């Protein structure tokens, strides 16, 4: 009984009977031993974050600010004036617009629908939705290569309806943002449906029952009760997806190599940075573009968090 962890048990036990008070009790900081364990686990994460997150960022910033005439913003100006700079950002923004809108609408509506099904059916559906997410990155690009090729695709009928007979007809500059949005959707949507389902499970049943008693139908309950209560999760999804979307790299890179260059090697900003660093040995301008991406992602995240009131306490 000297173990501080065990002393919590009576309080827990009492909570069932004493309701309110016990909740207050449970939220008290845990006693000494578990606090040390907490620091230990956080320390591991902080060490990883410093090595793999903060240090490379600091290095990128220092590279970006170093020019042949000392410290300055020359690399930012030079990289901005590259002919591929603005097109690369336009490509990615167009891709993000298509992807984020379709992902938000489809993920939320599928999660709401699945949540209304019986528990076993809903679990099956969530598992099926999640499956494509298991093949992320390079593996998914190889599969999509088959799917986009009219002679091998199971969806060839769609491509034939569009008069596509070769992979080159599918992989056109105008189609690229749509193709990458399709790939990103199938990689990520399943995982987010599971997350949204978890969020929906936190909606109190009393609330839903009360709405039903007041005569709310399935759609009204979904849109007026459930949706507002998971809004923060949707915002959370947008922030994370936007950041990963601006870093689009693997999909265009591999599709480009597989098609002999139909996706230019500077299609996305991240590809442009990679090309500068590893094809032309110009690390400083590449670092400047990476910093641009970081600032861009942070600004949009702050905007979404602020407008979406993500951290507001209800």
């Amino acid at each position, binding site marked *: 009984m000297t173990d501080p962890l065990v002393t919590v048990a009576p309080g827990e036990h009492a909570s069932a009977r004493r309701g309110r008070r016990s909740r207050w009790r449970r939220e008290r900081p845990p006693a000494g031993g578990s606090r040390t364990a907490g620091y230990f686990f956080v320390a591991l994460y902080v060490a990883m974050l410093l090595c793999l997150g903060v240090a490379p960022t600091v290095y990128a910033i220092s590279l970006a600010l170093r020019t042949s005439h000392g410290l300055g913003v020359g690399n930012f100006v030079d990289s901005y004036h*590259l*002919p*591929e700079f*603005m097109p690369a950002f336009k490509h990615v923004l167009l891709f993000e617009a298509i992807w984020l809108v379709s992902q938000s609408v489809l993920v939320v509506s599928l999660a709401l629908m699945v949540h209304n099904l019986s528990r076993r059916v809903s679990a099956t559906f969530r598992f099926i939705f999640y499956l494509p997410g298991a093949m992320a990155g390079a593996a998914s690009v*190889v599969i999509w*290569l*088959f799917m986009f*090729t009219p*002679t*091998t695709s199971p969806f060839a009928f769609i491509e034939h309806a569009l*008069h596509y*007979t*070769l*992979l*080159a*007809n599918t*992989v*056109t*500059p105008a189609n690229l943002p749509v193709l990458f949005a399709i790939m990103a959707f199938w990689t990520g949507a399943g995982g987010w449906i599971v997350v949204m389902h978890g969020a929906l499970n936190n909606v109190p049943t009393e609330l839903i029952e009360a709405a039903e008693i007041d005569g709310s139908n399935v759609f009204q309950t979904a849109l007026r009760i459930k949706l507002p209560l998971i809004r923060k999760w949707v915002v959370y999804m947008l922030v994370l997806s936007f950041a990963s979307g601006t870093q689009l790299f693997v999909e265009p890179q591999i599709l*480009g*190599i*597989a*098609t*002999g*260059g*139909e*996706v*230019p*090697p*500077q299609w996305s900003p991240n590809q442009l940075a990679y*090309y*500068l*660093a*590893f*094809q*032309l*040995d*110009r*690390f400083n301008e590449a670092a400047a573009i990476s910093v641009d991406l970081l600032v861009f992602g942070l600004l949009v995240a702050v905007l979404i968090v602020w407008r979406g009131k993500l951290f507001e306490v209800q």
Partner: protein
Amino acid sequence: MKSFFNLKSWRGRSLRSRVAFAAVVVTGLALAAPGASTATTMSSKKPLIVWIDTSRIPYEQAYMKANPGANIKWVIYNGNENGTGVLQSKFALWNRIGWPSVAPDVMFDSQNYDAVQLGTAPYNDLLSLSKYVPASVLKGYAGHSMSACTTPSGKIVCLRNDTAADVLWVNQGLYTKFFGKAPVPTTWSGIVADGQMLKKGHPGYTVGDIGDEFDDDFIYWGNGCPLDQVVGANTVEIDPTNLACTKINNLLDNSGLEGNAISTTYVFAAGGFPAAKVVMMVGPLWYGTAVFENGKKAPDGVPNGTMAAYPPPLSVLGKPITGALGGGLWLVSSHSSQPAAAAALAEFMSTSPKVQAVGVDAGLPDYTPDQAAYVGSFGSVFANPVVSGKAWETAAAEVWNGWGPTPWSTDAAWASTVVPGVTATPPSTLGKQMNSFALALANDARLAGWTVKSTSKCINSFGGSGC
């Protein structure tokens, strides 16, 4: 501008086998890395490290047979396959952190334009070979082919492996059937005229193909259209309005053949390419066994002894020039601790008849003293071995040196700007897409820090606003 072998082993197959091939290469790399065949040796000297691609394994075997006991560590890599930039990225990193002991001394490189980039600033990582390789050997390479190994300041930074010059491939049986004893065309307009006759009388048969990711090499390079002309240090001339360019565009666009007798599919299409319907086609030497006599049955292939190579057609301006599609290079690192031995190995690989005669599939040696023996080994592979052999040698010497070694891929620019249009239904014309192709090239050049010279309003305008 791409490797003979790169194309044969990677593009030359269906999508399914491409993926399988990638898997094999990855496994091969994993297996090769730790236990790369290190020759047993008595000396404690550091072995020469030589990087080759999978297609060059017969070369390794030939070398070891000729030099038993040589202290060499052979490492398999992807040959710097187009778009992967393995050497560029490794060199860039090694130049920052120092060159490790696992760095290669000698490399095979499948990309024609790599040597000059890696041998000049900011890289400067290749050994200048004129000190180590006799001038008589350097003069032995076909035509102007050593221009891909010569930096603007005149340094020799690589040796050529094989040549992949364009010839006119003719299905001898079909040609005699349709055209009797008429001589095979020697001009582009002759090819177009034959195409028009076939379109009318024998629809379905073809005289060419413009749907591939690399067809800019025979259409524009082979016709002397200055889209990649190095005119000084880091200066390129890109002139889509030049007569050579507009003339070939007009000839093909006005022929009414695009999409029928000049097919717009891939020669390596995933669903198969009707090789048995090709009466004639301008293409690199290796098309002979990779596209036509490829071991497949009609319609995707023809039996051995069907095709014959003829000299490439004269350019639209009447010049005896042609383009090329591949041909590898041997590079020597300037960071090698044994430069003389490394240069000697590169020279041996590039010039020795023991290495450069490993089969018709391997590609014509660029080193001319080796060529006669090589084409003499044709046997019954092609329909007319004597004519075909002569045509190969002629083509190797005619590759136009107007397209220089620039650190970007003209094929990639062509693939992203023109291929989607010409392969669409109905196809767009070459002329309509010329500006976007040229602008993509100019952007690639400017991105690489080069100066672009042009008389085209499109290229000189800001952001392509005048296109």
